[in-house]
């Protein structure tokens, strides 16, 4: 069953066509990879789905509900969460307090029966899940002093706290070391086991192709290819888009 159906979304920014007529169906409990060279419109695509940018044309249907026109917080509360490419923690708050904010959202309150539990404890549990060492001082540190890897994990923790059904991860792996990537990949695989649907925007093709069920390729805002990782790897047009040369 398709959990998310994207049809013909188009967005131009003052003449620059950022996303042009992109359609894709995402089946429940699969991992969709989105790749494409820099500036090919991947983040804009994510922004449109999550309500941060309103498209010129097109529709996004989540579980039978049209989502274009809904503000970002409504989209989030329906169950589509997104992690930002540019990490956006609450810099002045300690890491575990960062998670209290999504824990206070209507979605979480409704699902955990009023949600008057101990939020601090809940947030520490979630942070442990994404790799914050519980017994250390890391979860209590202010976000502004945390290293980049932890901030990326914090983005992921936010989505887990929100109990999202669709996880949209915009370049989660960028700027991480191989070791960090290998430690985060199991978390994503576990989410899949839990029945979540994941959309990953990535430049780290090798890591992505290992876990993706389907991949779409964007170039200059257009979808130039859709298929299983193996097909994408062998496609001439994709190589051309990436390498910028005639093959």
């Amino acid at each position, binding site marked *: 069953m398709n959990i998310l159906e994207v049809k013909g979304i188009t967005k131009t920014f003052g003449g620059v066509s950022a996303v042009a007529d992109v359609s894709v169906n995402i089946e429940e409990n699969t991992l969709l990879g989105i790749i494409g060279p820099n500036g090919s419109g991947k983040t804009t695509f994510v922004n449109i789905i999550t309500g*941060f940018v309103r498209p010129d044309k097109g529709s996004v249907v989540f579980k039978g509900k049209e989502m274009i026109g809904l503000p970002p917080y409504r989209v989030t509360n329906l169950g589509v969460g997104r992690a930002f490419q540019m990490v956006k923690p*609450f810099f002045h708050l300690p890491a575990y307090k960062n998670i209290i*904010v999504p824990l206070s*959202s209507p979605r979480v309150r409704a699902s955990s029966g009023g949600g008057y539990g101990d939020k601090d404890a809940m947030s520490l549990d979630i942070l442990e899940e994404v790799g914050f060492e519980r017994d250390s001082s890391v979860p209590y540190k202010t976000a502004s002093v945390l290293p980049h890897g932890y901030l990326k994990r914090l983005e992921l923790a936010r989505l887990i706290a929100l109990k999202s059904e669709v996880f949209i991860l915009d370049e989660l792996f960028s700027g991480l070391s191989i070791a960090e990537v290998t430690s985060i990949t199991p978390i994503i695989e576990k989410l899949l086991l839990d029945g979540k649907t994941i959309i990953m925007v990535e430049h780290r093709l090798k890591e992505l192709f290992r876990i993706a069920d389907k991949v779409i390729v964007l170039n200059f805002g257009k979808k130039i290819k859709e298929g299983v990782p193996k097909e994408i790897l062998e496609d001439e047009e994709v190589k051309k888009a990436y390498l910028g040369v005639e093959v």
Partner: protein
Amino acid sequence: MKERVIDGQNYRKERIARCIKARSDDIYALTSQKEMWYLLFPRIVPIVGIAIVAYLLPIYWKKVILTTCIFAMLAVSWDFLSSCGMLSLGQALFFGIGSFAAGGFNHYLHLPVYLTIPLATVTGGLISTMILLPVIRLRGIYFAMVTLILPLMLMRLIEATKLLGGTEGLTGLSPFPNEWVEVTLIMAAMWAALFGLRRFIASDYGLIFVSIRDNDRATMASGINIYAFKAQALFIGSSVCAFCGAFMTHSYQFTGMPVFAMEFSILPIAAAAIGGMNTLAGPLLGAMLLVPLSELLREFGTLRIVFYGAILIICVIGLPEGIFHYLSRKYNEMERWVKIE
């Protein structure tokens, strides 16, 4: 990092937190008297100090204390709004609306003081929030610019329509029973506003407000309707100002166009800039310094404002973090010189 050389040895300054502070900030989790005093001291001293000054000094200075407290509250409210990501340049708007509300209730409906003030606080907060609701989506400097022009335009509006007493204003409003009540009330209100808001911001619910300032897009991505929260913050912040306006109105038994004066917008910001933003206590401290200072400079006439501006510029450039941050660091952390190997 500061360094210096003593007897041919390099020394570097090191800061360490006093261990008491490191353990807990919550008064209920304290284990010894020493810790309790450590936390209470910086809170009690100003409360008692200002009370002594207020009760002992002659009547003229009572008025100064009154004004100081009012500006301190405006500054605290400004800082609260800015902690929620709303940069207001128009505290005068909230103040003025509260003042006119109290004046109106008293003049037209003949309500007594103890009713007009709470009524004006709530209605003032509501009206202010309504006026700003259309622009609540604006951020940063854009929101600031709108709030700056609104009170000035309302001033013209009252001038033009001759509503609410027009240019003359409403005079002969009911006074407070006596100045003791007045001074006690305003001091109580000021401390209540400060400690109340501080506690509020530290709560799980208040956390959401602070997160909006840090990053409103991440707050939205956390499923929070930031506009609803901003409206709530506006209501809280503007109610505090409206209270000040209502209080001032009865204290001077007058309300009129001057309540929208730029002074009520600028002075709180100045106080916050000098005292230290996003601490709530800093702006209060700033107001405690600035208002009496401006009272001392009164004999210079309009030159006073020139001094004022100059002080502001110097403070903004030279002391960007504010006095409060500086003091609290000195209080909570020890400094010592250590040898560099």
